[in-house]
C-alpha cells in the first residue's frame, strides 16, 4: 500500500538529510507506528506519502502508483485516498461538528444526498452523534480529535495518516482515540501513526518502525516503543 524505495529527502541548506536511503513496505490493512525522536524524519515520511514534499532521490509508491512522478493535477485525487489527522486537530472554528466533517466531502464535490447519508453515520462511529451541532470550542480536546478523525475517515480512505494524534491529549483520552483508530483499521484502512506516546505504543502492540537521523533502525512486528526520551 505504501512503499519507499531508497528514499532520501534533503531540505535546502546545510545539514544531514531528513530521510536517508529509507526503504520500507507497508501492506494493505496494516497498523504501523512510526517512532523516533524529534527530527528523526517521521513527519517528513508522512508528508512524502501525501506528496506535500517530493523526495530528493528514490521512489515513493502509494496504492501502486509512483507518486513523486505524478502530474500535479492528479495529486488531489491521491489525497482523497489518504485521510489525515494532526496533533492540533485543525478544525474550522466557525463551523459546527457536522459541518466540519461535511466540509471534507463538499469540497471534493460529493452530492448533498451522500453527505447527509455519510456524515451522521461517521459521527456515530466516533461517538459524537449527540454533539453534531456543537461548535469545536465547546468540545474537549479528545472530542475535537474525534471530529478530526471523523473528517479524515468520512470519505473512507484507503490510508489514514496520523501525526501525533494523541500529542495534546491526556492518557485516558488517548486510549479512546487509539481504540477509534483501531476500529478504523479493522475496516481495512491502512493506518500509519507517527507518535511519541510510549504508553500507547506499549499498550496497543503493533508493528513499530523506528527512525533515527533519517534512517530505519528498527522494524519490528508487535514491537514496543523501545527507547526513552
Amino acid at each position: 500500500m505504501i512503499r519507499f524505495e531508497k528514499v532520501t529527502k534533503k531540505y535546502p541548506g546545510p545539514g544531514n538529510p531528513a530521510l536517508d536511503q529509507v526503504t520500507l513496505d507497508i501492506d494493505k490493512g496494516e497498523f504501523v507506528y512510526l517512532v523516533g525522536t524529534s527530527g528523526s524524519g517521521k513527519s517528513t515520511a508522512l508528508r512524502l506519502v501525501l506528496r506535500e514534499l517530493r523526495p530528493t532521490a528514490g521512489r515513493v509508491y502509494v496504492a501502486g502508483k509512483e507518486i513523486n512522478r505524478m502530474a500535479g493535477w492528479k495529486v488531489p485525487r491521491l489525497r482523497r485516498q489518504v485521510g489525515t489527522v494532526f496533533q492540533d486537530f485543525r478544525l474550522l472554528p466557525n463551523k459546527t461538528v457536522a459541518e466540519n466533517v461535511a466540509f471534507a466531502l463538499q469540497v471534493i464535490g460529493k452530492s448533498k444526498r451522500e453527505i447527509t447519508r455519510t456524515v451522521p453515520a461517521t459521527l456515530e462511529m466516533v461517538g459524537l452523534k449527540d454533539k453534531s451541532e456543537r461548535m469545536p470550542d465547546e468540545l474537549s480536546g479528545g472530542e475535537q480529535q474525534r471530529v478530526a478523525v471523523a473528517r479524515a475517515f468520512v470519505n473512507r480512505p484507503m490510508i489514514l495518516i496520523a501525526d501525533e494524534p494523541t500529542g495534546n491529549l491526556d492518557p485516558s483520552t488517548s486510549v479512546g482515540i487509539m481504540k477509534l483508530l483501531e476500529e478504523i483499521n479493522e475496516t481495512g484502512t491502512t493506518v500509519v501513526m507517527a507518535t511519541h506516546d510510549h504508553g500507547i505504543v506499549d499498550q496497543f502492540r503493533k508493528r513499530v518502525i523506528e527512525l533515527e537521523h533519517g534512517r530505519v533502525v528498527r522494524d519490528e512486528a508487535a514491537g514496543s516503543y523501545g527507547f526513552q526520551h
Partner: protein
Amino acid sequence: MQLRYVFSELRTGLRRNLTMHLAVILTLFVSLTLAGCGILLQRQADKTSETLGSELQILVNLCTVDDPSGAPQCAGGEVTDQQRERIEEEIEASPEVASYEYQTKEEGYEKAQEILPEEVFEGSDPVVTVDDWPSAYWVTLEQPDEADGVISAVEGLDGVSSIKDQREALGQIFGIMTALKYGSWIGSGFLLLAALLLVANTIRLAAMARRREIGIMRLVGASTLYIALPFLLEALVTAIVGVALASGALAAFQYFAIETGMAEVVTFLPWIDWSDYLQAIFGLVPPGIALLGPALTVIPTLLLTRKYIKV
C-alpha cells in the same frame, strides 16, 4: 461539482474584503473610463483624417464640367485623362510627396455626405450632385510643413481647379486629439497599475483569511480549480462592476459631450457615433474595456492563487 460552497465563499469573501473590493472597483472604473476615452479619441482622430485628410495631406481638386472656381485652367470643362496624367507626373516628381491617391467623383461625394448638411443632397434638383463633385488627388507629404514645391508645381496646371490645404487647422485639431488620447492612456495606465496592485493585495488578504480552509481543502483533495474558484469569481465580480460603471460613464460622455454637445456645435467634423462606443467597450483591437477589465483582475488572480494555494 458542488458549487454551494463556492458561492457561499464568494459572498463572504466579497463582504469580508468590502473596502478592498470597493477600492479595486473604483480604480478600475476610473482607469477603464480613461482607457475607453482614449479609444474613442483614437477613433475620432481616424474618422476625421478619413474624411478631411490628415495634417500631412493636401487635396488637389480637379476641374468639373461647370467648375465653381471659374479658373482659366478649367476652361476645358471636366478634367481630361491627358491633363490628369500630366498632374500625376508633377506630383510624382516632387520630393516633398510621400504618396498620393486618386479619389473618384463618387468617393468624394460619399465623404461629402457625412459632413455637409442633408438638405443640399435632397430634392429633385439638389444643390450638390455627383457630377458637381470634383475628382481629386490626396497627396500625402513627407513633412507636414513642406508643401510649397508641390503646390506651386501643380497649382497652375490645366485641369486643377483648386488646392485645399488644411494642414494648419487640422494640425491643431489632431494635436489636441493626440494630446488628449495619450493623456488618457497614460493616466489610465497608472491607474490600471494601481488596480493591479490592489487586486494582488486583496488576494493576499483573502488567502490569509482563508488559510485554514485552504489547508484543509488541500489535505482532503479538493482540486486547485475548486480552491481558486472563489478568488476568481471575486475578481470577476469586481471587474464586471468596474466595467459596468465605466461603460455608463462613457455612454454619458458619448451622449452629452458628443451627440448633444460637440456634434451640434462643430458640424464640419464627422463625429464618432454609438458604433464607435460599442467598439470602445467590446472591441478586440485595441482591446475594449469589457476585455481589459476582467483580464486585469482575473489573470493576476490566476497567477497569484497559484502562488498562494499551491497544491
